[in-house]
């Protein structure tokens, strides 16, 4: 999926106004907690059928880190 679709998915997950999350957002600034992490893993499994490990998530500090976890599944803007 396109990067901005992915960002909107995150806005929804974290119950933020659409357009809040950007590639450079820090997870701790956008309300990321352990429940969000579990929800993210489930969402990623459903949308892309890939398994993200909770440890890899722990090491992700920015949204850009999250995008990188998904490889080709998220097409980043130029």
């Amino acid at each position, binding site marked *: 999926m396109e990067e901005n679709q992915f960002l909107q998915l995150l806005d*929804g*997950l*974290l*119950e933020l106004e659409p357009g809040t999350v950007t590639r450079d957002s820090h997870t701790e600034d956008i309300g990321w907690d*352990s*429940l*969000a*992490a*579990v*929800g993210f*893993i*489930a*969402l990623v*499994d*459903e949308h892309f059928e890939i*398994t993200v*490990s*909770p*440890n890899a998530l*722990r090491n992700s500090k920015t949204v850009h880190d999250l995008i990188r976890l998904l490889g080709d599944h998220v097409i980043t803007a130029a």
Partner: protein
Amino acid sequence: MNPMDLSGRTVLVTGASSGIGRATAILISELGGRVVLSGRDAERLSATRTAMASGDHAIVTYDLTQTDGLSAWLRSVAAETGPFDGLVHSAGVQTTRPLGAVSRADYERIMGVNLAAALWLSKALRQKSTYRPGAAIVFVASVAGMVGQSGNHVYGASKGGVIALTRSLALELASSKIRVNAVAPGLVRGTEISAAFERALTVEQMSGVSALYPLGLGCPRDVAYAIAFLLGDTARWITGSTLTVDGGYTAA
């Protein structure tokens, strides 16, 4: 003399491919009962059957979300196997979703398999040629239907619904001599639900979850014993109740 003997009884078990359903099918066969294993994948059901004690067990596949055809389907199965003495609804789905991420599709699916199917299976069982008086229904509910868990609201609602359904159906079906009960398991290792938890949680988080259980996490056979108890003469005078099988989780 074994008070839990289920010889001569034919029991339909949904979700028999894995987890609690599988353990229940196996235990029923060991207690002398005959099982009609239901699920979506004939190969996996076959694998369960191989693990069972010998008997005239049958495999049927059906997508329980197709509720329109359920009564006709169950009637046709009973025409082959004879009427049922028991029904165990163990098929179920769970997804952890924070409120911000829950979708209509999640809701429909979870409610469909966990709650709607319980209702329509009961309606289907209650057809004249499909059950024998003295039959027993056991729904697999969950502790999530009794206490809250963040991110588990839809699953909890579906299982809370099952617990309430159990009570009303028990009252309504008593005159037909059908007993209706539920078991409420906690987190059980070796199930698809626990596998999903293990994928989503770190080892420390998983230990944290285990620590909430005074007796640790359960195994499928622990719940199967309770189900078998509720199916047989051991529960002759039990209906409308939910038996908690959770290692002490809800006692806190």
